[in-house]
């Protein structure tokens, strides 16, 4: 299918090993930049921790702002990994092979980023563990009716499953690297390889386990962001209280997740000369996913407005949506619509899909739009509740921006380190795919063939 020449197995291993080689100045610069952002964010959190949320722009009625927006955004980013690795695996979408490792790494790191924000935003973050159900002598328990508790379960489950999925999927590659490295790295890979020796028995168990895990992870793709959307949907607030939210949020999450994968892949393949491994075909397929989800998101926007606007003038729901589109925050709203619904349509043109940097530009803007979407949902609804007397606008202050960009730094810092630890391309599956291609009839013995390489 791919028009590009297929890379040879040795080329694959060399490419991956090259990525694990001595870091170049560009890498170190990026590392320093991300580290700096993290330090800035950490300082902001230190201030919030010691002085309280007075340093934010929050107040009444807007009790949630940038921080919760970041939580939803990063959970959304986390979606795509499982989508690509599990769902597309089950659907046998071949193009996933080259990109799924990056997507999975992205998932794990994005959940690790997202999970910070519910803690950051608490009035008393040192008591965040009170949201966990744990036996204690005070006889206190958590409120299972609260969506915030559902979040705790949804996000922690998602983190566990995606970590397991990533590590299981990476075990054969880790074994390959174990055999190719020495010293400390070798020890690390020995650990990550989980005693992988590549025997037939292991391969049989491995493919089974991977299939089961994929099956197990698939509902999570739908559930996690559905649960996150319930944070809003089960409330009483006009603009939040909507049964549309779960599918709308899942589609949005996939849109932003795929956009983020593309945003990462394009520079990655350029930096490590992986053009023959991550081919324009792969990017093309991902772009199509972007267009599809963008259309779903656009449909959701239309539905929201279509349901709200015909209501009588006194309806608070209608007032909130009119406020969104015409009020104080209208510029953000229209930027969001442009980024999420209009710009992705450019990807309908093959020329744009194939122009790597245009693709990246669109994808970065999609994520700006998706971040704004969450911000618009959270802030415009809160600032314009039912009692007009209580209306008040919100503007984030610097510690919130520090945490927002600090999170970006944290995510990419994890990613940069991850690149040097795990092979960002699954060697085993790539070889498997090549074997598939080499034996078009499909014999069912490829596991054995590949295992020789490992």
């Amino acid at each position, binding site marked *: 299918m791919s028009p590009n020449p297929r890379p040879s197995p040795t080329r694959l291993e060399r490419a991956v090993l090259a990525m694990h080689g001595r870091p170049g100045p560009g890498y170190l610069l990026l590392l320093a930049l991300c580290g700096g952002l993290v330090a800035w964010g950490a300082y902001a959190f230190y201030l919030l921790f010691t002085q309280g949320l007075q340093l934010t722009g929050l107040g009444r009625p807007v009790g949630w702002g940038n921080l919760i927006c970041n939580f939803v955004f990063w959970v959304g980013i986390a979606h795509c990994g499982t989508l690509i690795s599990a769902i597309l695996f089950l659907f046998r979408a071949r193009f996933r092979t080259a990109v799924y490792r990056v997507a999975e790494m992205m998932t794990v790191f994005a959940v690790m980023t997202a999970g910070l924000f519910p803690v950051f935003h608490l009035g008393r973050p040192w008591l965040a563990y009170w949201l966990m159900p744990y036996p204690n002598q005070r006889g206190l328990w958590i409120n299972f009716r609260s969506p915030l508790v559902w979040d705790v379960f949804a996000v922690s489950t998602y983190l566990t499953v995606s970590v397991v999925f990533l590590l299981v999927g990476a075990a054969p590659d880790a074994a390959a690297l174990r055999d190719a490295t020495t010293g400390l790295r070798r020890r690390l890979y020995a650990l990550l390889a989980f005693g992988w020796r590549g025997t037939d028995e292991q391969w049989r168990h491995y493919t089974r386990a991977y299939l089961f895990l994929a099956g197990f992870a698939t509902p999570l793709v739908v559930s996690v962001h559905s649960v996150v959307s319930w944070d809003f949907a089960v*409330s009483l607030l006009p603009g939040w209280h909507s049964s549309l939210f779960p599918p709308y949020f899942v589609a949005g999450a996939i849109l932003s997740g795929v956009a983020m994968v593309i945003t990462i892949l394009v520079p990655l393949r350029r930096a490590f000369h992986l053009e023959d491994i991550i081919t324009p075909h792969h990017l093309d397929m991902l772009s199509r996913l972007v267009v599809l989800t963008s259309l779903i998101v656009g449909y959701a926007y239309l539905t929201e407005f279509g349901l709200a606007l015909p209501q009588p003038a006194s309806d608070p729901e209608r007032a909130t949506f009119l406020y969104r589109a015409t009020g104080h925050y209208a510029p953000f709203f229209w930027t969001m619509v442009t980024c999420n619904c209009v710009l992705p349509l450019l990807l309908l043109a093959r020329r744009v899909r194939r122009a790597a940097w245009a693709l990246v530009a669109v994808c970065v803007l999609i994520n700006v739009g998706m971040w704004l979407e969450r911000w618009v949902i959270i802030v415009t609804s809160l600032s314009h509740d039912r009692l007009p007397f209580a209306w008040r606008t919100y503007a984030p202050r610097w510690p919130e921006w520090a945490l927002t960009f600090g999170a970006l730094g944290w995510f990419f810092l994890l990613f940069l380190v991850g690149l040097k630890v795990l092979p960002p391309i699954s060697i085993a599956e790539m070889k498997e795919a090549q074997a598939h291609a080499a034996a078009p009839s499909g014999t069912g013995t490829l596991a054995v063939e590949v295992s020789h390489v490992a």
Partner: protein
Amino acid sequence: MASDPHDLPLNRRAFLKLAGAAGVAAGCSPRAATQKVIPYVVPPEDIVPGTPLYYRTTCRECPAGCGVTARTREGRAVKLEGNPEDPVGRGALCARGQAALQALYHPDRFIGPVRRRGATLAACGWEEAQEALLAAIAAARARGPGRVRLLTRPEPGTAGELQRAFMRAAGARPADRVVLEPLDPAPLRQAARALFGRAEVPAYDLAAARSVVAFGADFLETWLSPVELTRGLSTGRGRTGEARTRLTWVGPRLALTGVSSDRWLRARAGGEPAVALGLLREVLDPRAAVAGVPADLRALQPRLAAVAPAEIEAAAGIPYAAIAALAHELTRRRPSALLGPGPASQGPDATRLAALLLLLDLALGNVGRTVRFGADPGLDPPSSAAEVDGLLASLSAGEVDVLLVHHADPLGTLPAALRAAEALGQVPLVASFATRPDATTARAHLVLPDHHALESFGDVSPRRGVVALSQPVMTPLHGTRPASQVLLDVGRRLPGGEAEVPWTDFGALVRQRDLERAQRAGASDAATASRDAFQRGGRYEAAPAPAPVALAPDAASAAVALPRAAAARAAGELDLVLFPTVLRGDGRSADLPWLREIPDALSTVSWTAWAELSPATAARLGVAAGDLLALDGAAGRVELPAYVYPGLRDDAVAVPLGGAEALALAPAARDPSGGRVLASRVRVARAGRRGRLPVLEGSPYQHGQEIVPAVTAAAPSVPRPDLSARMYPEPRHPEHRWALAIDLDRCTGCEACVVACFAENNVPVMGPEAADQGRYMGWLRIERYLGEEPGGELDVRLLPMMCQQCSSAPCEPVCPVYATYHTAEGLSAQVYNRCVGTRYCSNNCPYKVRTFNWRDVRFERPLDMQLNPDVTVRARGVMEKCTFCVQRIRYGEGQARAEGRPVVDGEIVPACAQTCAAEAIVFGDANDPASRVARLATGPRGFRALEELGTGPAVTYLARVRAPEDES
């Protein structure tokens, strides 16, 4: 399976080990070493830790003299409430009265006498201070009369008697004691003297009036005796149908008092006398056939008939038909009461206005019924503006050696144009008895700080038949000394002073005077009777019968003249309306944190003064709310942030009194009868910058949502949504279901409940920055809507908003840690130490009544002494909200249980309901169908806020009644 206790892994040895380790660990705690709890060695009499002790005393924040019940805990006052036995306040206390507590614990209080050394005031001993004062007075006395002056607040009681004796000892003439009352209704007193020969302010019985017309008299805020007058109006508002009291407000600006009115006549500034004249013209018209008009008054009719309606219309600035309609209402609805002038209508014709209103009252037969003369004891009437100005002139001329300032702040309450600061600069010794720094102490040479009123003995007689007694409710906090005691000590030591000042102890003198009263009243055991009087808070006799009045025809004839036509307006000039507000008062308490933090009910502005413009004027000037305005008058120039208020005429700009800004603009002029003129004109322009204007309101309009409905005679009930379809069963409240009913037809927006809530619940004051960011912590706010849509009809509606304690509270299910949950008594409880601060509850609350602790709040000594020990001080990061004063509920339930009886309706009263002068807030058990709250809540006017959401609030509002427009 339950295991045998002998099989527990914890044996005796292990237990002892653990206990020992725990003991050592506890001993190592750094706090254990420093915290000590020491029991009283000799317990003070009456003080039982944990049990409140109440003292009766008297509020001295304004001349009304409301009775106070001070709640003390462990020897310190923690809250001020009204005295239910006192006929003035009847258990209610206004916002400023309650905030007096903060003056007691004010961190800036003088803790001892200070003396000027160069530019600063340095501490000195009482001996030194009194010696200095004595020497100065003795020297001044030797130089002849008039060299010693005393400027005091009104002291209608023993303190006044002592002051006069002291002044005699100091060789002063009676006129050398000047009584300063900045918001004194002097024109009314002057007019009464001219018309009836009685220089007194009448007492108004609004409960008996069927119609009330206020000409700029903010009687629900600061005018005369606001608590008493609020209760009077509220009584009339409790009647239904035609008998419901109708209130009309006349003036260029719709004040908070006007918000309670049924009709607003937008007379131009200074047009009020023309309105009154028009009313008199119509009332005396033979066609009106008003019976019982005195002949002398009827004789004026031809002269009135000669005034053309067009002239009246031009002078009043409103159509004559509106005046005629009001006159028609007054002739129909008798008795009525016409009140005025207030500070907002105190123009150059204020005395004429007062006279016209008294004539109207006389013509309508109100005098003797709703307007009663003979109640003013006249013990210490405030000096006229002319006398105050005369004092300043003497000071400037260097004719005075010693000026004593007793609870008066000439620099902080007199118009800056009077140049009181320069006058004071000419006095060699200015001695002040202020308790905390004010504008005058900044220029004083000697400050001899008085006790706070809650630390002192005293008595005042606000009216005949009432002697309000004050007694210390706690040991003085600082090394202060009662001002009267200082005067007494110094006076005795003046040459020949002992003859004039024969007493030694002021407290003993106050008690002695009361003993004499008891004896005069014929008490068999005067000592016991006097002690009872102190315990009750005063001596209350039935109000005296109204004194008959005789009209002086000449004075009446003089009053009946159309006021001077308004001078032509220069370009860019607007009428300046200076209005008092309930929180700012005359400015002497305006620095108290509660009064600054709580937003003004009408503008919702806190922490700053502001300048109001009508929307049309603001648009013409290109001004938005918060833009700085430059107000340039003959007296001075100030810059104030603009607030756009549709309740103001287009040709006026309004600035609140009670601050330096209003004083800078107030003219130095006096009216012909010697009253202070507050009206003037100013040029208004954009200053070109933004100012800080912390407002509580988001949008002042209801945006078609009908959040606060009103009812009319035609539609006497509020339509309620159908909530019969429910998925879940209602929560059950087997024993009690605590509930509130708030009557919006009585609520005046006076903010007394808000201050009570701050005091009772340790609600912190956050400051202007927090107010800007929506971090106001008040548990109770007065929501004020101006109408349906911007630019629409002005229809002000108030809605006190606190936690609605919903049956199906949206805040409860979303809390992940059960920090908020529904109690069996229907309260939405908030567990502070369980709260982690997700703020989801606040987001999900449709009423937005939850407040979050964005930062740590510290109550540093002595502020912590005011804290109510029954209520937790909340930490940073937790949510809080109105609890229906759960501590009071628990206390009441505990009392009932201890006495083995059920809780009686009305026994438990939250702080807001306790202090409501209008009795608009009623608390009780909705489970008991006979309770007041249950009966009110099921009435036709009942509605609940955002009821369609199905939250099931425990607060029922009773809709405001709209009087029919056309008077038939």
